[in-house]
């Protein structure tokens, strides 16, 4: 049989076996979702859920009108919240930056020992929610601002440390090498060749974390760690719904303002 003069050349994004694999994977995924849903469904008291609309109406009615006179009592908790978030961020960043240099493959003084220790510290910090940190710290140092600040700091370390160490690893190494060839020490060549490249990341990530921390600090009071959350908890316990609505409004306004500030600052840095 004569060879065709020109063979048609084809190209496929995925081979047939890859297509089959994708089909099976998608099917399994959907089955998994269906199973999870039935699981949740049998453990739900549907009577309560169906009642939700009525409850919402009821709660709404009790929240309005908001108790405006309560606003003045919120100034102190609000200031506390901002303090917790800001101090916690500063503390967290101060701990995160040295850890980031220990954790980055390109700057760590000891790949075998210090790097794994620093990475573990960062992961631990990130894997525990601020609320959990606050619960533990309230037991350790007593309720109040200190516990809140430390909880925010401990949670921020991992977040800031991880993003900064990744920026360090991605920074170009040629400028650092070039400065080393002038006879500069290792510390000097990092200070001049590397730090200018990661400084914008450090600043941007810190501001972004501050914004998140404002949000988180509004809730920490629920477990006794100071700030607006404490007022919220007290009002809910007292069934003072007209105050709850005032607190929720203040939290919303604070968070919106913090996000705006954060976005502005980060735009300036970019």
């Amino acid at each position, binding site marked *: 049989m004569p060879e065709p003069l020109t063979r048609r050349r084809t190209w496929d994004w995925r081979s047939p076996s890859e297509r089959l694999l994708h089909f099976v994977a998608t099917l399994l995924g959907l089955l998994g979702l269906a199973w999870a849903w039935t699981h949740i469904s049998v453990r739900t008291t549907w009577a309560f859920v169906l009642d939700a609309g009525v409850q919402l109406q009821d709660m709404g009615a009790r929240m309005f009108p908001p108790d405006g006179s309560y606003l003045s009592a919120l100034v102190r908790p609000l200031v506390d919240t901002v303090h917790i978030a800001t101090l916690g961020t500063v503390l967290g960043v101060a701990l995160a930056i040295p850890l980031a240099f220990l954790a980055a493959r390109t700057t760590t003084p000891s790949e075998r020992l210090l790097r794994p220790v620093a990475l573990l510290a960062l992961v631990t910090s990130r894997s525990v929610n601020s609320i959990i940190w606050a619960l533990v710290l309230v037991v350790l140092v007593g309720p109040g601002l200190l516990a809140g600040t430390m909880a925010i700091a401990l949670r921020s370390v991992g977040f800031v440390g991880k993003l900064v160490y990744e920026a360090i690893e991605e920074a170009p190494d040629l400028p650092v*090498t*070039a*400065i080393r060839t002038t*006879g*500069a020490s290792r510390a*000097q060549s990092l200070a*001049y060749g590397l730090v200018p490249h990661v400084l914008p990341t450090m600043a941007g990530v810190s501001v972004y974390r501050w914004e998140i921390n404002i949000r988180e600090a509004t809730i920490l009071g629920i477990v006794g760690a100071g700030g607006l959350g404490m007022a919220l908890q007290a009002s809910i316990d007292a069934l003072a719904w007209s105050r709850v609505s005032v607190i929720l409004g203040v939290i919303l306004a604070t968070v919106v303002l913090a996000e705006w500030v954060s976005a502005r600052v980060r735009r300036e840095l970019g």
Partner: protein
Amino acid sequence: MSDAAVLRVDDLVVGYASEGEVLRGLSFALEANEIVGLIGASGAGKSTLLRSVQRLVEPSSGSISLRGEELTTLGSTELRAARRRMGMIFQEHALVERLTVMENVLCGTLGRTGSWRAIRRRFDAEDVVDAFRLLDRMGLSGLEDRRCDELSGGQKQRVGIARALIQNPELLLVDEPTASLDPAASVRIMSLIAEVCAESGLAAIINLHDVGLARRFCPRILGLHEGRIVFDGPPRDLDDAVLTEIYGEEAVEPHVVGSRQDDVPRVD
């Protein structure tokens, strides 16, 4: 033993873990004032040679000495002192793009600036005067506060040269200074390097891809082929046979490596 040579390389062998040996027994010496052009195909080991003189790559055997001082066995403090005496200029500029021209030039003085002063950016007043003088010499007057990512390729290369010169080096190690420049800018940069070497009595090794530039600016040329020196002589001895040995058959046509003298671009 006193040694007239600025740099002496003896039976140098250098390898990378992934590549095996890249330099396979190099020997040559560089006298004061001598400008040597190092040519060879891509991967021949030109950059590796410069990097091993700076001990950015550790030689596996052989010796490298700077005015008689053996470099391959130096501890870290003495190595820093030795590095100060050798200015390195990189093909990709290797500037800190986010710092200003002045800051980049002053980086060249870090070897003699204390760490604490360096952190606070407190440089010696003499060094600052020197930096201004070099910027003028490089044709960069008035650009000291510009950030380096705002400069053209040629300007960046001049900043790189100033950074190397402010070290007050005895030797320049120059890795393809013109690779990212157009022909006219290449000639200007090479003239500048040749002039400053002559002015300060510097010796230099210059890696070049452009044989024409090597012929024009380097009174002595080393040809590297697969980690060995296959040519060491003046440009006039660099004929087609030698170029074939260095670059292989395909390359030796006048328009490829410029084996004829008058292929050199002129800007006068």
